[in-house]
């Protein structure tokens, strides 16, 4: 709790160069409901953003021991968020409803999550509730083919906004949507022609936030590639301590290749545990008091690079004695080409 209220939500808006992040933000921020939203941007792009709580941050990353990029602390972000917190607590700005952090096109969103979760002050005052990724309907396929950062951005997304659908071929849009679904079956996908979208829908967490129930991929299988996703459940309640041991071990050994893990785990309590992580960075797991849906079975999605679904399932199978339940794949296992 911070000042008698829960933590301030932070939304990360990411997307490849020219995918329409700034256009989308420009439209959304002009809505009256967004007046108490602060915006942190890395660059003032050609499309000028006009907003009274706009701050520019110069990306200054501090690489921590081990040299892992996703465990980098963004000092610029720490300073900017602490300044906003100070202004908010002093009452010098209207009550802060939300902070939007716009990344550069080439940015990996994981360090932003790490910065907020790891900072001793920020972790008590801010929480990342949503990662929004914009994908350009015209060049999206090309970006996904050529840039591993683009695949990471899609894997990290809770919501994907496909932009420029008004000027793209309908068949190309359908193919892209299918590809996005295969990379990240847990993300909620929206289309935004002309940068038009509803702010309320964009930032609404129902069905898309970090507590959302991931769904199994039900599209057509893709050719084998580097990035694989697998949705799975368990045949019973999972021992949370054992799952924490397995996942922390996996993330230490292969964290840079585990692009995303997201799901709800039945741990034998009245509600599930929300598990959500991007590479080495895990959201603080939340033990819910009740299930958000009628279905009370675990559902978890792994998106990994260079790790085959059968390797993950085989590992969980080997750990079943510790976990107390056997893993079962959900839907079609799939892989997507990344190059």
């Amino acid at each position, binding site marked *: 709790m911070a000042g008698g209220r829960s933590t301030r939500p932070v939304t990360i808006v990411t997307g490849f160069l020219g995918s329409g992040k700034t256009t989308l933000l420009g439209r959304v921020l002009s809505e009256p409901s967004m007046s108490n939203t602060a915006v942190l941007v890395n660059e003032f792009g050609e499309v000028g953003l006009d907003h009274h709580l706009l701050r520019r941050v110069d990306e200054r990353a501090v690489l921590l021991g081990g040299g892992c990029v996703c465990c980098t602390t963004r000092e610029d972000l720490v300073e900017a968020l602490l300044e906003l917190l100070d202004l908010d607590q002093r009452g010098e700005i209207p009550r802060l409803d939300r902070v939007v952090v716009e990344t550069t096109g080439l940015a990996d969103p994981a360090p932003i999550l790490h910065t907020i979760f790891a900072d001793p002050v920020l972790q008590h005052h801010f929480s990342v509730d949503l990662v929004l990724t914009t994908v350009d309907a015209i060049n999206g396929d090309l970006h996904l083919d050529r840039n591993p950062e683009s695949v990471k951005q899609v894997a990290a997304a809770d919501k994907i906004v496909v932009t420029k659908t008004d000027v793209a071929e309908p068949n190309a849009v359908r193919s892209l949507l299918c590809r996005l679904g295969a990379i990240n079956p847990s993300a909620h996908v929206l289309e935004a022609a002309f940068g038009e979208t509803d702010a309320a829908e964009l930032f609404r967490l129902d069905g898309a936030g970090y507590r959302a129930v991931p769904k199994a991929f039900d599209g057509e299988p893709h050719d084998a590639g580097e990035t694989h996703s697998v949705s799975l459940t368990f045949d019973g309640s999972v021992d949370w*301590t054992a799952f924490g*041991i397995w996942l*922390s071990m996996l993330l230490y050994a292969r964290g840079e290749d585990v692009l995303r893990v997201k799901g709800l785990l039945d741990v034998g309590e009245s509600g599930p545990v929300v598990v959500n992580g991007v590479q080495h960075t895990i959201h*603080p*797991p939340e*033990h819910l008091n009740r299930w958000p849906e009628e279905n009370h079975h675990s559902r978890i999605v792994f998106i990994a690079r260079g790790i085959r679904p059968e390797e993950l399932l085989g*590992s969980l199978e080997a*750990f*079943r004695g510790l976990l107390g339940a056997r893993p079962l794949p959900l839907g079609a296992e799939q892989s997507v080409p990344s190059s």
Partner: protein
Amino acid sequence: MCVLCGQDFVAQVHWTDRHLEDRAREAAPGSDPVALQGDRRRDRAHRVALTNEILRHYGLKLDDWGGSKYFLRDGKGRSELVQDLGSLWPAAERLAGRTLDPLEPALLGETLGEEPAFVAADGG
């Protein structure tokens, strides 16, 4: 570090310890601290037992150390103190001389923590 009790102040709680922290924070005023401590001790003992099922494949052993840290050692007498699971795996890598990978086929060849076969046969 506290000069009186020798305990580190931990600014960052590892995500696997978060539920214990949350439980303590949400406890109603006046709730029994002994019960919370008991929960915490049981949780740590359970974690040590499960982790040792994995570590024995690498010739390592873990013990609880005063309820605040863990003591990791190998068969040669080398040891390290670790705070949580986040610092356990790098320390285990240093002592074992290789990364402990749950996807490693050698580890997958054996099912961890499975009850002995005769128990299952009796149950059937």
